[in-house]
């Protein structure tokens, strides 16, 4: 009898001895929920995944987190739709047990998943979703390291003022982002450019023929056209505005950094010339040591300059690794405490989160710049920064008459 007990005990100890290191080395999962298929901006999602993967590789090469555990990314496609985003987040939080989710791009999706983040107690990061209400709701598990639309709209209104334009037309889609752009631009015009005229048109995101709307804008004779399309609609606006004779005769400002992607020229050809666009990163910017190391590695691997979405996703994964180490735990409440209590090295500065007023809640904002392409096939590195005045590297140029 004693012999049998002894054998059983030895067997149990052997099993525990064999499985304990494996349990200790169980990877920490971070979810990447981002658009990887239409109607989402799938190109943006691909760059976000690139950056996140490189972030996980870097952390794992340095020994991982929490005394040797590796970071494992679980990638889910939200297709830019709230319902797919919600399904993806549920899977990441419940089935995969992700400790955090990064990669959010579309504001409508982020707005849907942040309620689930509260429910599952999983921190969710906006990588490029900028609608005001995302952080204005003051939710515990929502964090953002991207610009917010009130700042974007104030910035483009100041640019319009500097250029001396008096009539601006804004064409944008019927999403949280597009509707937010209209509201915030109206407010910004009222405070910064009183007396200037603003015409806004919101179109259905699924519509592909925008000719009647662009003709209407052309007839109104604006000084500047603000392009608030995301993904395919952004390209459709440029192509069709060119065809009806609106662009580049009337200067166009694109609301985000899509023109920095290699696909821009492939899709638009010469029609993409003379567009101005808002960016958050420029190759001439000075980066942190971490950001510079990422840029070198990215250029070596992909033979092109990194895109902001990749930089930001990389920084978010590395930031989460720092948070796990600072919290010494993967418990969600401990992670939120650590996120609020610590400062983290980002790609171009120190990232910290505080619970500020309005949309400045658990929010960190990168710089915003206006750049311009002045010749076909121009590389992003050659595009001059034309605004704000303290960072500009060249003057904005009007297109020559066709």
């Amino acid at each position: 009898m004693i012999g049998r007990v002894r054998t059983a005990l030895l067997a149990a100890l052997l099993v525990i001895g064999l499985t304990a290191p494996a349990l200790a080395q169980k990877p920490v999962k971070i979810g990447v929920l981002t658009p990887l298929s239409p109607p989402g901006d799938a190109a943006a999602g691909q760059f976000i995944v690139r950056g996140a993967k490189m972030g996980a590789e870097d952390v794992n090469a340095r020994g991982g987190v929490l005394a040797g555990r590796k970071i494992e990314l679980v990638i889910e496609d939200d297709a830019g739709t709230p319902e797919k985003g919600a399904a993806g987040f549920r899977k990441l939080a419940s089935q995969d047990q992700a400790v955090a989710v990064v990669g959010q791009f579309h504001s409508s999706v982020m707005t849907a998943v942040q309620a689930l983040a509260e429910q599952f107690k999983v921190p969710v990061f906006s990588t490029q979703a900028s609608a005001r209400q995302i952080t204005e709701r003051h939710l515990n598990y929502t964090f953002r390291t991207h610009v917010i639309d009130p700042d974007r709209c104030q910035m483009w209104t100041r640019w319009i003022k500097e250029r001396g334009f008096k009539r601006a037309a804004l064409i944008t889609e019927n999403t949280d982002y597009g509707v937010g752009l209209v509201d915030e631009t109206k407010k910004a015009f009222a405070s910064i450019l009183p007396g200037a005229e603003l015409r806004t048109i919101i179109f259905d995101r699924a519509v592909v023929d925008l000719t009647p709307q662009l003709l209407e804008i052309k007839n109104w004779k604006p000084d500047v056209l603000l392009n608030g399309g995301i993904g395919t609609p952004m390209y459709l606006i440029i192509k069709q505005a060119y065809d009806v004779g609106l662009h580049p005769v009337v200067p166009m400002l694109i609301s985000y950094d899509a023109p920095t992607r290699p696909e821009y020229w492939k899709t638009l050809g010469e029609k993409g010339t003379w567009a101005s666009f808002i960016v958050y990163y420029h190759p001439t910017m000075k980066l942190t040591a971490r950001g510079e190391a990422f840029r070198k590695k990215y250029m070596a691997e992909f033979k092109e300059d990194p895109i902001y979405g990749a930089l930001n996703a990389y920084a978010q994964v590395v930031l989460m690794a720092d948070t796990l180490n600072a919290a010494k735990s993967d418990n969600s409440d401990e992670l939120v405490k650590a996120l609020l209590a610590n400062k983290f090295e980002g790609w171009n500065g120190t990232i910290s989160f505080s619970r500020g007023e309005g949309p400045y809640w658990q929010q960190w904002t990168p710089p915003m710049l206006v750049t311009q392409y002045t010749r076909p096939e121009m590389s992003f590195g050659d595009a001059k920064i034309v605004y704000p005045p303290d960072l500009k590297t060249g003057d904005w140029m009007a297109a020559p008459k066709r």
Partner: protein
Amino acid sequence: MDAFLLSQYVLSGLVIGVIYSLMALGITFIYSIMKMINWGMGEFYMIGSYVQYALIVSVFGPRRWYLALPLAMGAVFLLGLVVQRFLLRPMFVGGIERRDEYATIITIALMVFFRNLAIVLGGPNQYAPPDYARPMTLVTLPISGNRVVALAGTLVLLALFCLVIKKTWVGRALRGAAQNRVGIQTAGIDVLRLDMLAFGVGVALAAAAGALLAPDFLVYPENGAISTFKGFEIIVIGGLGSVLGSVVGGVLLGVIEALGSVFLSAAYKDLYGFLLLIALLVFRPTGLFGERERSV
């Protein structure tokens, strides 16, 4: 609002309406012969646009885009033959009795399959072939040259289609099959083989629309969704099974959407077509040129 501007909006709607009618014609033609709705029509439009893009970029170059168009149509025609022969023909029992739910399931499955295949093969990004023609002015409307080419191409294809249907032996057989599938078999015609031809021609028309509109509406995995949606609206407005209805329905839809989006709101552009559709269903349930089904 001056007459000049109004003419621009009407012309813009008219042009896009005629182009959409090509898609509607494909749907209504397949329905007429096979008595089934092809829910995957948009994906044949999408494949047409991808083949056109691939041929222009890798074989013909931007100046000889017109050589790519018949090849894109031909490729999709052959694909349609294969799909009909191996996936859709089993829905017919003895050439007459058909299982409608079978066609619905198969064509919806094809829609999902082709869309995902496009993502796997070409990635989720959009592509654009070079312009077919420079922007120009059509009467009062400043317009993309591609759109004018698409309009001309559509009109040529519509004329060719009508010619074949009215004047040739095959056309007579197809009209016969549309009228009575049993009767046509008594004349010694293999109706199942005719189905294959009709399906191939129908999806080739969708491919032509995709190829013609590729430079303007871009090439991406979901680009067929909106034109399929419009195509279904048009065939209900114009009357299921009517070629003339497809063209008139397309023009009506295009003009109403253009005017509604300018005078009311662009955010509800799709709503205006649906309001027209509902009004027609109330007052003329068979559509503008549709005929009440006769049963014996």
